[in-house]
């Protein structure tokens, strides 16, 4: 079965799921709701009582764990980058039976960053965003909190599997897949129950997050049923939909909400949000790994050779190129939302806003790079695959990580009830992470290009220039490690003794609240464009007081 046929089945399945979520499943809706709720809480027995069900506790737990996963992810990636120019640097670990290599460390760093950090931050954000947009509460905070620990366990297993695929003859990665899906299915059911109890029409960012979560397992099921999962093309396709498409939808929902909430501006364009959602489903996202081998590793099946037909190449290239439309739509929408009606970002110092700005800004060039490399791979030319690893890491560290971190930081005060400890530390963390990742990976990419040029010229001598540039790249990437430690410290300290969110300063004059607090001039259109802006919205000057005035004493 070709790419276009498999994609058609996926589109149809997504449409069916969307309709079912909206309309319910006929007379079985109530039965399925109560049964799902029972499975999520009471059926789990005593373990469910280990966690608290306070409002916001699930989102806080997922976000804190996601932030903590940033540290191992950045350290492992840093070690991988270092070993690419100094393969013997960690040879002393061999006395403990460990023989880390650059490639295995970069792969495990990628997995820990995507599943541990990005995945947990985005799922944590969705646990606040979906109920908030639906005007309801999360169906079960307890189950969601408990599942965060299952997810963390799965990331640990995934890290072990990436470095030691088999232990006593047993493949480890399928075990990680099992644990991840166990937690993911519980989260999806939780989200569906939450969506079912919505009290108002849910805006698009909420649907993006729900469909993003569902599309991951849905793609595997669709390709398993239709057959091509054991072929190279099928494995390539499932790697593309399961990872980048699913994460892109989750990320889009999170940063659209985060940009609007953090800046206090209404979403710039609902049409562009719709283009982002529909476009992400109907195209093939160019971010992420180019090969399909990872799918076979995760599913524990044999890797098939990638041998696409001519039709597959044409259809794949076409859908890859089309994917730039939703990506540009997202980028434009987020940047315009953050800027409001002038050229400046609202609340540039607010934690999370610089990260969202960076992610929205970098999504387009990194995607264009990914499109070139993927098309090159799809057509079998393989002239650009030398920069593939650097480009994938750039997508992770300057698009997905900042986006998920930014969204999580912008909603953190609402979910935890406290602000992060220090805005200044948050700013430092951003510059260290963004500067370290961008400069470090750009230098690494330069070294990749240098190696590719020498390989093409068939020069067999060692490329000392490339090695020197790699040293610089890995040292600069260390900024990301320090930045992630700063972010984690800031979040953890903030959750204990950060200023109370209720006492904190109002983010901007155009914050979404009722009554509408006016601190500077604005327009009626802007007030009406707010979510709660109505004709009878009360506008109060922020500095108003009930104290009687008195003459100034001279």
């Amino acid at each position: 079965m070709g790419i276009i046929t498999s994609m058609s089945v996926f589109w149809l399945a997504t449409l069916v799921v969307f309709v079912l979520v909206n309309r319910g499943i006929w007379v079985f809706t109530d039965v399925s709701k109560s049964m799902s709720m029972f499975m999520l809480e009471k059926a789990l027995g005593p373990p469910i009582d280990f966690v608290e069900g306070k409002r916001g506790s699930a989102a806080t737990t997922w976000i804190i764990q996601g932030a903590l996963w940033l540290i191992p992810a950045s350290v492992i990636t840093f070690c991988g980058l270092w070993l690419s120019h100094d393969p013997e640097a960690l040879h002393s670990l061999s006395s403990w039976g460990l023989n880390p290599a650059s490639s295995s460390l970069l792969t495990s760093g990628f997995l820990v960053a995507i599943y541990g950090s990005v995945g947990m931050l985005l799922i944590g954000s969705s646990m606040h965003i979906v109920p908030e947009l639906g005007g309801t509460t999360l169906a079960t905070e307890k189950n969601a909190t408990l599942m965060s620990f299952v997810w963390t366990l799965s990331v640990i297993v995934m890290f072990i599997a990436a470095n030691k695929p088999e232990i006593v003859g047993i493949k480890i990665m399928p075990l990680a897949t099992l644990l991840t899906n166990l937690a993911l299915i519980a989260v999806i059911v939780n989200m569906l129950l939450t969506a079912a109890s919505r009290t108002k029409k849910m805006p698009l960012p909420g649907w993006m997050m729900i469909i993003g979560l569902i599309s991951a397992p849905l793609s595997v099921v669709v390709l398993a049923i239709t057959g091509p999962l054991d072929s190279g093309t099928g494995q390539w396709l499932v790697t593309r939909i399961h990872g980048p498409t699913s994460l892109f939808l989750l990320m889009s929902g999170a940063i659209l909400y985060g940009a609007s909430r953090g800046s206090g501006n209404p979403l710039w364009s609902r049409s562009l949000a719709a283009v982002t959602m529909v476009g992400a489903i109907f195209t093939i996202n160019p971010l992420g790994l180019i090969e399909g081998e990872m799918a076979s590793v995760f599913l524990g099946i044999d890797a098939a050779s990638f041998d696409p037909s001519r039709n597959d190449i044409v259809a794949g290239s076409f859908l890859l190129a089309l994917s730039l439309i939703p990506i540009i739509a997202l980028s434009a929408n987020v940047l315009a939302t953050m800027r409001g009606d002038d050229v400046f970002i609202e609340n540039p110092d607010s934690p999370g806003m610089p990260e969202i700005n960076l992610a929205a800004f970098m999504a387009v060039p990194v995607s264009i790079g990914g499109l070139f490399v993927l098309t090159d791979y799809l057509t079998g030319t393989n002239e650009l695959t030398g920069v593939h690893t650097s480009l994938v890491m750039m997508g992770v560290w300057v698009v997905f990580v900042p986006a998920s971190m930014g969204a999580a930081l912008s909603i953190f005060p609402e979910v935890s009830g406290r602000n992060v400890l220090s805005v200044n530390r948050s700013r430092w963390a951003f510059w260290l992470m963004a500067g370290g990742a961008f400069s470090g990976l750009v230098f690494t990419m330069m070294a990749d290009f240098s190696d590719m040029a020498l390989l093409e010229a068939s020069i067999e001598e060692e490329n000392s220039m490339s090695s020197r540039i790699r040293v610089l790249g890995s040292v600069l990437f260390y900024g990301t490690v320090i930045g992630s430690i700063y972010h984690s410290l800031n979040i953890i300290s903030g959750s204990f003794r950060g200023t109370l969110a209720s006492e904190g300063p109002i983010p901007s004059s155009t914050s979404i609240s009722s009554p509408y607090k006016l601190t500077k001039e604005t327009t009626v259109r802007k007030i009406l464009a707010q979510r709660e802006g109505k004709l009878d919205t009360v506008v109060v000057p922020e500095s108003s007081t009930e104290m009687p005035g008195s003459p100034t004493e001279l």
Partner: protein
Amino acid sequence: MLAMGFVSTMVFLILYGILFPSSDLPVISSVLPVFDGVFDSGIWFFILGAMIGVFAILGTMLTEATSE
């Protein structure tokens, strides 16, 4: 207190060197060979920095959770 501890450590080390010349330090001389070959690459200094950061987070969590 720290200065006092540092000065007394130096005094004891110098005294040990005078009283037992050409003798290895007890305990420390047995522990150090374990780390042979560990710091032969610059990467370990970076890893040390990350470890300090991780312990700072653990310390923060412990102190924040136990403080009133």
